[in-house]
């Protein structure tokens, strides 16, 4: 190595500060960050100061490697300075084979993390039942909590919930013993702003005491959830994404007035237009509505435009979109109903279903453009 070249190298090392190196490492999976410990003596301790830990067993395919992954998680957590905060911790432990020991260790790993002032905790696991790490639910520093893959979560698991800092809660693939387990969980999150649920089910429905504590909620996405009171808990939201199916009846009796709701996305089977109008009556300030027709059912309700027009439709609605449009009687009626009654409507966007033939598209487009528009400035867009 020439002198000049050597000096360049030395210059470069000295100019990239430890702080910047740690910052680069924070964008890596922890596995990759740990590998940099063998670069040189200077690099050896650096990954330990990275406040983000991101671990995944995605590439584990056999039991022996699975065990070694478990040892790695321990070695990562135990080689860090106890005083050093872990701001974010993400663990994906989804090996589908015999994962008994990692299942058993999960609680130990979580408790090591909870002691380090963790703010963002994400666990995607594939566990045997009865392993819910309930200590999480009393971690006062948590701002973001994302949990997925826990089964048979019972009342005991959620007996004590105290998450005063929590703003974002995402639950995916979680099974509760009873409806009220989720209620208990939410009762301990008074400052929640963003709530997302995907495939969360309860094994037994029970009547729930009145529920009014999510007063700070701004966004909610509820996709496939059979817990009936859940919609009631969302009354404060400004944005709502709801996937409803045949079990929509479980929500119907619990619809609150969504007095702050301005934007709603609903995805549902074809035959729920009647329910949709019922829902709109509960959204007086709605400005943006997007409907996604999934079209699982093969029949129409033969829905007739009601005489009644909800306040949001007549006064507030600015943008409306229908996706997956097949040109069914009901969907056409609904588009006509909106355009004929919405005085502030600026855009009506119709996205046709890909399965629809080109002839059918032309016909549908024709029918749509014949619809009367209550708003003079309304533009109709039809997307193939």
């Amino acid at each position, binding site marked *: 190595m020439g002198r000049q070249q050597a000096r360049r190298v030395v210059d470069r*090392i000295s100019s990239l500060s430890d702080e910047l190196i740690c*910052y*680069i*490492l924070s*964008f890596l999976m922890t596995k990759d960050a740990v590998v940099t410990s*063998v*670069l*040189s*003596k200077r*690099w050896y301790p650096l990954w330990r100061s990275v406040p983000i830990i991101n671990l995944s067993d995605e590439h584990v395919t056999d039991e022996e490697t699975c065990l070694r992954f478990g040892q790695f998680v321990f070695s990562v957590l135990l080689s860090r300075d106890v005083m050093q905060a872990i701001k974010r911790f993400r663990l994906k432990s989804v090996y589908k084979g015999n994962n008994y020991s990692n299942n058993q260790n999960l609680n130990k790993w979580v408790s090591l993390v909870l002691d380090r002032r963790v703010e963002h905790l994400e666990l995607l696991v594939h566990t045997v039942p009865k392993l819910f790490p309930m200590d999480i639910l009393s971690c006062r520093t948590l701002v973001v909590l994302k949990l997925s893959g826990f089964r048979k979560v019972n009342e005991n698991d959620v007996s004590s919930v105290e998450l005063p800092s929590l703003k974002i809660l995402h639950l995916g693939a979680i099974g509760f013993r009873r409806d009220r387990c989720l209620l208990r969980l939410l009762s301990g999150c008074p400052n929640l702003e963003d709530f997302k649920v995907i495939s969360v089910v309860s094994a037994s429905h029970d009547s729930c005491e009145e529920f009014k504590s999510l007063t700070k909620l701004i966004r909610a996405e509820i996709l496939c959830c059979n817990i009936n009171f859940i919609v009631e808990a969302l009354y404060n939201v400004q944005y709502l994404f709801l996937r409803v199916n045949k079990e929509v009846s479980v929500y119907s009796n619990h619809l609150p007035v969504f007095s702050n709701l301005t934007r709603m996305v609903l995805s549902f089977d074809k035959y729920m237009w009647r329910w949709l109008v019922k829902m709109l009556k509960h959204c007086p300030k709605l400005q943006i509505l997007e409907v996604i027709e999934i079209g699982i059912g093969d029949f129409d309700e033969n829905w007739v435009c009601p005489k009644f027009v909800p306040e949001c439709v007549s006064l507030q609605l600015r943008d409306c979109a229908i996706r997956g449009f097949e040109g069914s009687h009901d969907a056409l009626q609904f588009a006509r109903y909106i355009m004929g009654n919405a005085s502030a409507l600026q855009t009506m966007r119709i996205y046709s279903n890909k399965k629809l033939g080109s002839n059918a598209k032309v016909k549908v487009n024709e029918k749509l453009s014949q619809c009367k528009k209550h708003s003079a400035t309304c533009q109709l867009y039809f997307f193939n």
Partner: protein
Amino acid sequence: MAEKASPSSNSISLKTVDGKIFKVSPAIANQMLTIQPLIKDSDSSTIISLPDVAAFHLTKIIEYLEGKPAAAPSAVDAFEAQFVKDLSPEELKGLLIAVGYLKVNGLVDLMANTVAKLIENKSVEYVRKFFGVVNDFTPAEEAKCRQEHAWAFDGVDED
């Protein structure tokens, strides 16, 4: 102290380590958090020296701050992808150091993330070369390090 300059010539002068002077608007300069406190007290005659920043890097930083779309996240992503595409690894590192020093809004994240992607899943020797690191471990010491977190080295390219 001289009279305050008129608003139209209210630009900030920045001097790079290789002696070039750049005139930028206060809106641009304010996004460099390190020099923010200096801007308040400066007028058009003030020249702020940037000891850790070369002209090439400052040109890129200004290009980023002026060109970044204010609107949709997808437009920002496309702009950022284009911005880093033409940079060599050497330029990336230099620019990272410059934006790290100046604490440029948004750009520190972009540069660190881009560098991280370049070393992801690469062999130890590749990463050493990339950062210009001289290995000062004895072979025995290095083997011991690898042993401490053995699983991390699964699937890592041999040198």
